């Protein structure tokens, strides 16, 4: 099963990326690297790579920082800890589609969020503006990611032996010093892992922009997931879509390799 739906397709996609095919007809011409040449000279492709990186960076920054702050706060909450953990995790288990629909209404002119901004004198058309649509998507993406990062960071914080802190306190270390010389170094590998996982996940986003913006306005939120979907299943350019998919694969692979390299570096140091 895994062979059929995971391993075989990798090679097949690579093969398809070298052809020109609509998915139906018998004619499937081998075009070599033509798809890739067309891809790298396509403005839409570079635009989508740009906005996808924008989205991934935004979501990662917000959700990892937010998750760390939340985890640190929840870690001091004592008996109520499990309750907070559930509360902050709920957005993570809702579907992207439901989240997209609800947030679309929150951003609509009569929505609570637009109204809150209006009360500060900011009347903004979030999803209709090429400049604001992406920040709006990032906010929703980070909202959905926050719970995951919080839970993992909390587990990391709790795995630090309490004896370290007790010892530091006896020796007269202040809060800042404890954070700087105990918490930070011990949490560093985990923070890095969270960042990489968030970037990779966010890079593959599809449902959220599909429902919230459809890629618009003017390709401002046209992430690579949407680009692949549209080419493969709207325009039936299977070969061209495959070449985008392979490019995405290579980018993800590169990110993962960099992570491994940094991890090894971190261990030696």
């Amino acid at each position, binding site marked *: 099963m895994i062979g059929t739906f995971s391993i075989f397709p*990798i090679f097949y996609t690579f093969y398809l990326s070298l052809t020109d095919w609509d998915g139906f007809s018998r004619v499937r011409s081998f075009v070599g690297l033509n798809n890739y040449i067309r891809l790298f000279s396509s403005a839409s492709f570079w635009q989508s790579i740009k906005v996808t990186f924008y989205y991934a960076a935004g979501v990662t920054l917000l959700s990892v920082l937010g998750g760390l702050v939340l985890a640190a706060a929840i870690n001091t909450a004592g008996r109520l800890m499990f309750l907070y953990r559930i509360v902050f995790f709920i957005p993570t288990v809702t579907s992207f589609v439901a989240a997209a629909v609800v947030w679309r209404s929150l951003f*609509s002119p009569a929505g609570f969020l637009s109204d809150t901004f209006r009360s500060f004198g900011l009347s903004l058309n979030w999803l209709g503006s090429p400049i604001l649509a992406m920040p709006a998507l990032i906010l929703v993406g980070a909202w959905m990611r926050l719970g995951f990062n919080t839970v993992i960071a909390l587990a990391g914080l709790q795995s630090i032996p309490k004896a370290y802190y007790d010892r530091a306190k006896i020796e007269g270390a202040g809060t800042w010093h404890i954070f700087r010389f105990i918490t930070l170094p011990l949490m560093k590998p985990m923070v890095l892992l969270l960042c990489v996982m968030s970037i990779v996940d966010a890079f593959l986003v599809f449902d959220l922009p*599909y429902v919230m913006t459809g890629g618009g306005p003017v390709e401002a939120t046209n992430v690579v997931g949407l680009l692949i979907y549209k080419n493969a299943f709207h325009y039936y350019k299977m070969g061209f879509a495959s070449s985008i998919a392979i490019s995405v694969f290579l980018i993800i692979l590169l990110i993962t390799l960099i992570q491994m390299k940094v991890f090894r570096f971190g261990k030696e140091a």
Partner: protein
Amino acid sequence: MHNNYFKAIMTLVRKVGMHLFLLFLGFWVLMPFLWMITASLKPPELFNAPPHLIPIYFHWSNYIVAFQTAPFGRYYLNTLIVVLGIVPSQLFLSSLAGYAFARLNFWGKKLLFMLLLSTLMVPMYVTIIPSYLIIKKLGLLNTYLGLILPFAVSAFGIFLFRQFYVSFPKELEDRALIDGCSRLQIWRYIFLPLSKPALAALGIFSFLFAWNSFLWPLIITTDPKMWTIQLGLAMFSGKYTTHWTPLMAGTTVSVLPAIVLFIVFQKYYIKHLVLSTRLG
């Protein structure tokens, strides 16, 4: 003495402050849900009135309107069938394969396991076009089987069970082996009954995955009768863009099962979520 009082008060203030901070953030994180439920109960003509977050109207007919304009009942049924196909087969196949990887010695085991793990890193876009073509070739577009098949087992599930079984002591099955039990019997009567935490974790994982999945149903179902709940909701939202009140009613109905199940099983879910990141 004064100093001690001062210290105690400071600790209290800090504690209360921390809870207030968490409550404040908790409010903002849960606000979209409050908004969704409140909006789903508003009379449609009052949606544009000044927004509020606590329900003051109880206009239940939005739910009836939602079910009449879009066949949410049918979407529910479809999703349920897909979930009932995916979850048991995930549990069965993953625990069996996990057992094989943990206990049996067969040719090429290491290589196969490495291959399995490496598929975890492959983004779905790389596999989605060939998967679609396979399902099409098998004539399974617009069928339940087509919705279930690619997700009937997962590398993640096998990995989860393998890690779980590797930690079992060898003595557990030694006696049974001497007594002449087959490997399959050992799995069925010794390993499986001890697998409850892993079964619960993978069960809730695969349920949420199946319940929330969108891209795959979008690609392989063109017949509205086969739409799952997420697909139905997305299409409803695309068609009735600003009919907010029934739209919110439909959304509420679609998120409720996932949230309830998560709260019931959260202990297992979170524990295995944390374990799963350790592999990185």
